[in-house]
């Protein structure tokens, strides 16, 4: 869809610039005239929302770094000073902390949207894979960031996650020591985590550039999952989608502001308001909510190495989805069988998250949650490695509409007036 450029420089300066650095041409072609399917719904506004989230995290993060001290003896107090003494420090820190949760909320909606409408299928495999990479970088950044306040959850979260690497046979303990820079999580660990926490968002921004570049070659998928066939199927990105994205962004920011101003510690853990103590582990260590499903998988397996492999495998699996889905139809709207398994998958992810938040030996209705987590983990992997390939072969999809325009306007208005 990145067809011939329609940019037409008007002034002498624009012509001069266009011959040297065609930046206005790039902006014009990608953000203004870019032909976008005319049937995109609310779920397609989350790409823009995510870009906004990244911007919020970088701006608030740079400000916080002006006041934060990455030293095991001073970190906790410097965060308290940000909360109490720095002008509007409380606001900026709460924006940053809740911004991380908002970022993950948006990215999960974005990913489930891609799964539902088959946005990972040819020719968009690389967009999906780059997206998985961004998700991985986001998890690493969020983990490093969570360690910085140097509270009890920071310290013990860092201990548990870095110890995952010690499960690797033979060299595992050396890797853990290498990550810590000591024989336990300590000052050296905190310093390097701060350095990486500052670096990674800029790497994410670069990879987001690749994600958008790759998107602009085939163009957007759409809720029907059918290809754009004629100019009548599309609308220019501006003003149609700039306005739509902006509208839903405002709704999203209202939710964001609701947490920041009315329940800023909703996603937090009270244990993290206690300074890190290397000699006392809190009774229940839980990661941030967005990592709970993977944590539940880890805990449900009574073997250290196997648990780590399953947890890592759950994320690595996502890379292979473009080739695990054998269906020739993209959108679940036309896949009656897949639609049901998709929603079962969504429920299973929520269930895993719930199990991950409970105590290790908890039970509900007489059922040990560890078994709920085991079955849900099994379904997670079966969904991608068994159900997806098999359903694609045996399912009879519903009839696809002839074109996007026909589905929007009906048969009678096949050639609408612009």
């Amino acid at each position: 869809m990145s067809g011939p450029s329609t940019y037409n420089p008007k002034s002498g300066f624009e012509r001069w610039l266009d011959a040297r650095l065609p930046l206005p041409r790039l902006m014009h072609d990608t953000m203004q005239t870019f032909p976008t399917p005319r049937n995109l719904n609310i779920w397609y506004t989350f790409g823009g929302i995510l870009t906004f989230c990244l911007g919020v995290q970088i701006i608030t993060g740079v400000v916080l770094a002006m006041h934060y001290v990455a030293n095991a003896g001073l970190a906790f107090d410097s965060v308290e000073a940000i909360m109490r003494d720095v002008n509007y420090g409380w606001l900026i820190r709460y924006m940053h902390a809740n911004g991380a949760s908002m970022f993950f909320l948006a990215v999960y909606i974005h990913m489930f949207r891609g799964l539902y409408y088959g946005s990972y299928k040819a020719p968009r495999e690389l967009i999906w894979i780059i997206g998985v990479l961004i998700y991985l970088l986001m998890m690493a950044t969020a983990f490093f960031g969570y360690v910085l306040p140097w509270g009890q959850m920071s310290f013990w979260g860092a201990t548990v996650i870095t110890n995952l690497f010690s499960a690797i046979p033979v060299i595992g303990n050396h890797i853990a020591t290498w990550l810590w820079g000591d024989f336990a999580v300590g000052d050296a660990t905190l310093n390097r985590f701060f350095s990486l926490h500052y670096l990674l968002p800029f790497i994410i921004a670069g990879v987001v550039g690749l994600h958008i570049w790759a998107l602009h070659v085939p163009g957007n998928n759409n809720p029907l999952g059918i290809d754009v066939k004629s100019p009548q199927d599309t609308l220019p990105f501006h003003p149609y989608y700039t306005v739509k994205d902006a509208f839903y962004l405002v709704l999203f920011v209202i939710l964001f502001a609701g947490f920041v101003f009315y329940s800023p510690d909703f996603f937090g853990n009270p244990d993290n308001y206690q300074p890190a103590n290397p000699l006392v582990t809190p009774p229940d260590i839980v990661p941030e909510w967005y990592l709970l499903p993977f944590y539940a998988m880890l805990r449900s397996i009574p073997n250290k190495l196997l648990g780590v492999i399953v947890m890592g495998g759950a994320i690595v699996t996502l890379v292979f989805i473009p080739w695990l889905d054998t269906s020739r139809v993209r959108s679940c709207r036309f896949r009656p069988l897949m639609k049901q398994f998709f929603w079962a998958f969504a429920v299973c992810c929520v269930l895993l998250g719930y199990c991950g938040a409970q105590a290790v030996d908890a039970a509900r209705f007489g059922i040990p949650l560890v078994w709920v987590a085991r079955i849900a983990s099994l379904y997670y992997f079966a969904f991608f490695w068994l159900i997806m390939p098999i359903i694609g072969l045996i399912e009879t999809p519903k009839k696809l509409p002839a074109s996007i325009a026909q589905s929007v306007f009906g048969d009678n208005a096949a050639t609408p007036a612009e």
Partner: protein
Amino acid sequence: MAATTSDAGTRRDFIYVASASMGAVGAAALAWPFIDQMNPTTAALALASTEVDLSAIQPGQQIVYKWRGHPLFVRRRTPAEIAAAKAVDVASLPDNNARNANVADNLPATDANRAIKPEWLVLIGVCTHLGCIPTVSTPAIPEGEYGGWLCHCHGSMYDTAGRIRKGPAPENLPVPPYAFLSDTRIKVG
């Protein structure tokens, strides 16, 4: 000095390959300092030792000290706890290795191989699963099913000799190098 044009490649090919190879070796050599700088500094590597006074510890009580950044469990076991530890068939243990720095490697995890004096159990109190600190079990407040320790993070249970009995942890709690300076004083490290 005419350039040869055989299939074996020209002098120019050789120079390309040789210089690219040297470049790769140089890059790899330069990468090492950037990797190794993350390892513990010489200050962190300097071995520290700690002396522990045992006289105040009552039977059935555990005191936690800090040694090399890790918690050190010193537990004065009751006769019942020692008997329970000795009654275990070591062949049935998930990890039948003494994990004791004071005895030879690969000895079976009998109680005698875990403690220098049966009354005193000295352990590094870091769960061998993912590094949390297990909670000690007492008759008043039992933790886990084996009277030793329970790790609340992921449910690993240790017995009264600090051996893993149930849960995801792969190994027994390690015994650090220590020696009795007197009946009531040990030196760890």
